[in-house]
């Protein structure tokens, strides 16, 4: 046998080096439910993004003579009691629901990661004090506080983002702090310190990127929680106010008229449930892919 050939054959068999992220991507791709979830989410997001251009009717176009009609060729998902097209209203509602989900989660992400990283890097008394504060805040019944805030300061969207974000950052801070704490013992951090890098630079450049896996996973699982919270508040009449719309608000209208016009409840309900499904499946898949150690709960 030709030894040269052998080496060539061996060469071809050497697996290409894969990074952690490529590895995770491969694992994620194998998870069918997650990929379906991701596809569905992208579909919904694109629809909601393009709503002003693709919506079949105007957002507040009323047709009182038409009234509530079941799904038909002109109105795919029927119309509500004012003769407004349900498909259009669900699309516009989705914009608000998704927006709340993403913005409030970003608020939680920014506060939580910053706070957790500082506590984890500082260690010692600073860390103990910061985390005890998180413990105390965590024990507060926040749902009641959000309702209180909405009552006291009126129901505005910005406050809703801030209030929800302010609740969700606590867990994020704990996760990040735990990660950073274990990472800062590593040699490359020591190297960075001896090179004279400032703590901020070390945290941003070296520590946070390495703690990103669990953060991404938790972020994906926070979005459905936030959307649920918004829908809950809107359902009670304490969240989004008409003429703005959201899925929670549409569902609460649907409940009022469900005996005569069940489609007014069914379609917004499906929109919300399916989106939450997709987000949860994607989140579970990401956890398995990025953080194989974490147990499934």
């Amino acid at each position, binding site marked *: 046998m030709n030894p040269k050939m052998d080496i060539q054959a061996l060469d071809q068999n050497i697996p290409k080096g894969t990074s952690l992220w490529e590895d995770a991507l491969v694992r994620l791709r194998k998870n069918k439910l997650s990929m379906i979830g991701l596809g569905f989410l992208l579909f919904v997001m694109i629809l909601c993004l393009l709503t002003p251009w693709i919506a079949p009717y105007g957002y507040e176009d009323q047709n009182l003579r038409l009234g509530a009609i079941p799904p038909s060729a002109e109105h795919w998902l029927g119309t509500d009691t004012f003769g407004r097209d349900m498909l259009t209203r669900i699309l516009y509602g989705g914009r608000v629901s998704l927006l709340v989900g993403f913005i409030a989660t970003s608020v939680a992400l920014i506060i939580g990661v910053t706070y957790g990283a500082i506590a984890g890097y500082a260690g010692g008394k600073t860390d103990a004090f910061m985390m005890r504060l998180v*413990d*105390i805040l965590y*024990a*507060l*019944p926040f*749902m*009641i*506080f959000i*309702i*209180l*805030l*909405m*009552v*006291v*300061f*009126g129901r505005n969207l910005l406050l809703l983002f801030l209030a929800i974000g302010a609740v969700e950052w606590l867990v994020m801070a704990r996760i990040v702090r735990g990660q950073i704490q274990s990472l800062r013992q590593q040699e490359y951090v020591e190297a960075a310190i001896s090179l004279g890098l400032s703590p901020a630079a070390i945290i941003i450049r070296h520590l946070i990127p390495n703690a990103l896996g669990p953060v991404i996973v938790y972020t994906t699982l926070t979005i*459905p929680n936030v959307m*649920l919270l918004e*829908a*809950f508040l809107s*359902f*009670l*009449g*304490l969240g989004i106010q008409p003429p703005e719309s959201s899925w*929670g608000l549409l*569902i*609460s209208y*649907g*409940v009022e008229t*469900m*005996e005569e016009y*069940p489609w007014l*409840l069914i379609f917004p*309900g499906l929109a*919300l*449930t399916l989106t*939450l*499904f997709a987000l*949860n*499946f994607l989140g579970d898949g990401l956890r398995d892919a990025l953080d194989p150690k974490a*147990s*499934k*709960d």
Partner: protein
Amino acid sequence: MWRFIGLRSLQAIPVILAVITVTFFLVRAAPGGPFSSEKAVSPQVQAALEAQYRLDQPPLQQYISYLSDLVQGNMGPSFYYPGRSVDELIFQGLPITAELGFYALLIAVIIGSFAGVIAALKPNTMQDYVPMSLAMVGICMPSFLLGPSLVLVFGILLDWLPVSGWGDSRGDKILPSITLGAMYAAYIARLSRSGMLEVMSQDYLRTARAKGLPEYVVILKHALRGGLLPVISYLGPAFAALLSGSFVVETIFQIPGLGRFYVQAAFNRDYTMILGTTVFLSTLIVVFNLLSDIAAAWLNPRLRYQFNK
């Protein structure tokens, strides 16, 4: 153990105090006085009202009087329901909400842990997939959607069960309890599944099997205790979530409980009522978190040592 209980209880006090303080000043900061209604009242009446509710005093003074009243179990008169006190209203709604919450939690714990344990016994088979898919549905379907759907199917289409009230007609407690319990059943199923899976691979279970114990003893006596630990720790937060869930369920099924009072007080801008209910519910939640932590520490000594460190 006693040291743990003592230390952990001490930790609850600043939390409760913080709740009272934040709520008090938030409610005071609300724009528009509680009496700025459409009806114009004469200045004398206004002054008399403000004196009655102590609104003429400086805020700090009001806060101190409120605290001292609170310690004596007096939450002041309701702004909205004249002649009735907040504590009276709370204790009128409390038994109903407590009963609803009890049934819901019972359903959640029994169905949830049963489903979770069943799924964990044969992971990655149909016995695992079916209950876990149902659990996913339970998590993604919010109570304000599940409740009306159940009403539509069992109340209106099939006409089997009454759709509103509490204790007024036979079977009217079934739908609200299921609606409230479903989501927690789903969470508990997931928690107990992962808890059981983790325990099942432990050495002490292998030892138990090696001793020749029958499988049901291994599971019921040895695995369940460790496997259901996450469920016990979850019960505290679940209770808090159950209370806020009762806001929706009581509104949907028109149940005159605490949750409905709270939502109504929010709409009526009944400030003393909001303040009183918030303080009351928050204290309840903090106490329940405390109890669930103590229960978890009792079952798992490691948690105790961590805390005492």
